């Protein structure tokens, strides 16, 4: 089980949260001009990395707010938490190694 540091409520158990999947996937600004492949990329294709992953979480059983998390998908270490709309932290050596 993950211990997730909610930016507003502090450390809480994973069971209080809902996982929102990969972060920073933006809805296309001009959807009418997009090809089917571009739509598929937006809707379905995911980076699914083995290592550093940027993802969204919702504190659904707490403050009900969304935020972003940088987490390692093998060690499950959470290396950064930042607000929605903010840019992700630069990938550091420690975040890649999951320490």
């Amino acid at each position: 089980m993950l211990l997730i540091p909610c930016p507003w409520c502090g450390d809480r158990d994973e069971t209080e949260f809902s996982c929102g999947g990969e972060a920073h996937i933006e809805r296309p600004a001009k959807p009418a001009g997009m090809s089917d492949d571009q739509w598929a990329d937006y809707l379905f294709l995911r980076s699914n990395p083995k290592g550093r992953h940027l993802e969204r979480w919702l504190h659904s059983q707490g403050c009900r707010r969304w935020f972003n998390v940088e987490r390692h998908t093998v060690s499950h270490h959470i290396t950064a938490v930042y607000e929605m709309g903010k840019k992700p932290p630069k990938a550091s050596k420690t975040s890649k190694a999951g320490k």
Partner: protein
Amino acid sequence: MTRYSIFSLLRNAATYHQDWQRVWRAPEPRDSYDVVIIGGGGHGLATAYYLAKNHGITNVAVIEKGWLGGGNTGRNTTVVRSNYLWDESAAIYEKSLKLWEGLSQDINFNVMFSQRGVLNLAHNQHDLRELSRRTNANRLNGIDSETLTPAQIKSFCPILNTEPSARYPILGASLQRRGGTARHDAVAWGYARAADQYGVDIIQNCEVTGIRRKRGRVTGVETSKGFIATGKIACAAAGHTSVVADMVGLRLPIESHALQALVSEPLKPVLDCVVMSGSVHVYISQSDKGELVMGAGLEPPISYAQRSSLHTIEEMMASVIELIPITSRLRMMRQWAGIVDTCPDASPIIGKTPVEGFYINCGWGTGGFKSTPGAGWAYAHTIAHDAPHEINAPFTLERFSTAALIDEHGAAAVAH
């Protein structure tokens, strides 16, 4: 290689079973192969076997980074069934079930396939309607499926709590009698032995670290045992498909998640079928050793860690006790997790990719084990002919652009 039979068993009994032959060779990789299969689990080995048997392609290597069947083949809950909703899924899962029915004879290895029946429970009106819709769809596709009333469920599987006073009363069920379980390790070993007899090289402890390409075509794989040249690379690395695809710059509609299972201490025989409940969220069967084998849903966050987590186990146990109250004092013996790769429509991808000579078989989510023979059979056809067979033609990567999705979330549910 000796054929396994009652006579070989008797002959070896005379020498106290000291003289059994090695089951497959352990060759060093050659410089080049016609086909290199990445992943030595059930799917990869089945593909190698059908490539050799059905298509005469024997210059094949199966490359496995660990040991055979050490990934999801050895981590699933061994359930086999084909009661999926849509025609496309029915075709491929039923092909698989038909192959299961003759598999032990075909590969001369006892995979302990036991058609003990798979029961899918309904706990509310919506479940009942969905199950009856699926039963009807199955029957139209020639797949055996029937619906049971609570009284029939009680007589078919007496240890289930069919009392109307249950918190989530059982209102009905669908039953596929031809479904059941198989010994998962034996599937990997049996296919490995059968493929090896055709001359397929099975190379363990050999990790693929890169894929070489020239003018859009694959030319070989970099491995921990050196470079191996090949014109055709078939990925069968469930869970790690995105990692392998990344080596050729391919993005996929795949996410990797941990799926957990656990077994109890051994009991006297109490459960002679497979029970699944999408609403109470667990599936359970009893192994030949007497352990209750159970599993539940996926962990939502992406993960490549083959670890379990306590809250999922607690939910699973609560569900088991709800369905089978006599398990409340049962102790659990082992728990583990496997990494499955899931597609947005809960259906697999088997076929070609935009990279010439690079094929993928992935996205089986929680349904990979039951599909092993059928997927290997269709994947081998796809690789041999450089074109899909009609049963895997709908399961393309392109369907995510054309929107011809095959939504099997209902049939996959908890339990695959």
